[in-house]
């Protein structure tokens, strides 16, 4: 990896980082597998198995919400339009978060989001349990820390 091999013990740093990334990849694969029938899971798999260079995409794009100037007359129409735009921005943000979200309509997006959230929670639970077990094993085997 291109982690900057800085002056301080490069090898452990890289190794740790590398390992972390691989673990994260494994977590994502298992996440995708857990709900293989879902659109987001398929999109996630596609993303994972693409070239590694395409794997990490910067999700956070600062999209400053377009602020319309305050209407002089509080017209219902103008307010509604502004609100709608705000909501649309948020929906777009959600689309970027959920894998495969860009291709979906709002109602489908919500459905996929709900499923994605559930799967993520389960994944987190599994990982934590796993970490507990590993920690237990480690401390039993002696202090490596």
């Amino acid at each position, binding site marked *: 990896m291109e982690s900057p091999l800085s002056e301080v*013990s490069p090898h452990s740093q890289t190794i740790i980082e590398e390992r972390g990334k691989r673990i994260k990849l494994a*977590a994502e694969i298992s996440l995708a597998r857990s709900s293989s029938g879902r659109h987001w899971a398929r999109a996630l798999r596609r993303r994972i198995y693409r070239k590694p260079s395409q794997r990490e995409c910067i999700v956070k794009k600062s999209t400053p919400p377009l602020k319309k100037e305050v209407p002089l007359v509080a017209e219902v129409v103008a307010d509604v339009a502004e609100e709608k735009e705000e909501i649309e921005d948020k929906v777009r943000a959600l689309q970027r978060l959920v894998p495969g979200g860009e291709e979906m309509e709002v*109602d489908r997006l919500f459905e996929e989001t709900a499923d*994605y959230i559930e799967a993520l929670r389960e994944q987190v*639970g599994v990982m934590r349990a*796993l*970490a507990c077990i590993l920690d237990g094993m480690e401390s039993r085997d002696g202090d490596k820390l």
Partner: protein
Amino acid sequence: MSGSLNGNSASSGGGATGAGGDDFFDQMLSSLPSTWADLANPKSPWDMTSAANPSGSGEDCGGYDESALLASRLRQHQISGSGSPAGAKPMMLHQMLMSAAGRAPGGGAGAGAGGAGDPSGFFPLPLSLGRDDVEGAFKSPNGTGAEGLFNGFGGGLPGAAQANNQPPFHHAQQGAPMPAQNFGGAAPNAGAQAPAPAASGGGAAAPPRQRVRARRGQATDPHSIAERLRRERIAERMKALQELVPNANKTDKASMLDEIIDYVKFLQLQVKVLSMSRLGGAAAVAPLVANMSSEGQGGSNGAGGSDSSLTVTEQQVAKLMEEDMGSAMQYLQGKGLCLMPISLASAISSATCHPRASASHLGGGPAAAAAHHLIPPGPQAQPNSNNHVNPDGPSSPNLSGLTAQSAMANGNADSHKDASSA
């Protein structure tokens, strides 16, 4: 108005309101033969001829679909327009629809006995076309529980209302807020209109302001109905999401979306941190800390935290911890965080429902600060979406469960157990 209508119908074709009325009626009849034919096919329960007693407002919207169908047809014709004044024709049609549906009290001219009218089919359709009235009618709670329909139509109605420039205000005002009343008011008129479609030229050349508006509002048939369905579906999904996401008691759609977005980000970050530091961070904690901090200063952070401010904090803490624990603690406290053994944190979180302590456990290096908001205090507990470092002690029990693999060699993190068991 009702009086005049009754009079009109009673005159059986004699355009009491003037010649124009007859023309309207004739035009309508002539232009809508097919439609009327369909409508005339009795939907079985509705008997056009018999004096079906209006069931009163108690009747549910069983006939709703039919009404919608009729309304949509009405709308179609209105749109296709035969040149007659926009307001009159549809309203006339509506009247006829109502009578055709058998809702009207008994056929027959002058059957003012329409009485309570036919609420059933049209119940959900407030009969006001005046824009404001329409809005009001839609927003008022509908006792019959056809609120979903109302809401659905609310979207469609204003558009339709605008199309109709002859808001039958007087009628709307009669009963706008209460659909039942509308129908009550409408009924006599409808009854007066009783001439079934088959009936020839019953006179009701009503002046444009008549009830029918309600129909018009909803109708744009397939489009508005599909729209409504879509909106309902979206609302359902939104509700399902609300149950999943913590702090989801916001009524506002925008803030609800915010919560959802934050929660998804939070979960994704959790997975990342767990894999990078907790599961992957094995040995070499101190070097990990040092490396991460130095790398952090290099400008590129391997962990690529999604919250840059948090990452900076973590890096700072890690760096300080190398030099001197005391200064690290001070730094954290300045930010409203503190370091504590995980076991203590577990004890605190389990002892109280809402632990006030803003605790930052030592997790793996730079992830330490991030950890504090990552792991919820229980495997199945709803994680708090409070991702920010609260300067004055957070209200959220965001205690990090990240292990002290790293850390603190000084024995602070003696318990490597996940604090999340709290």
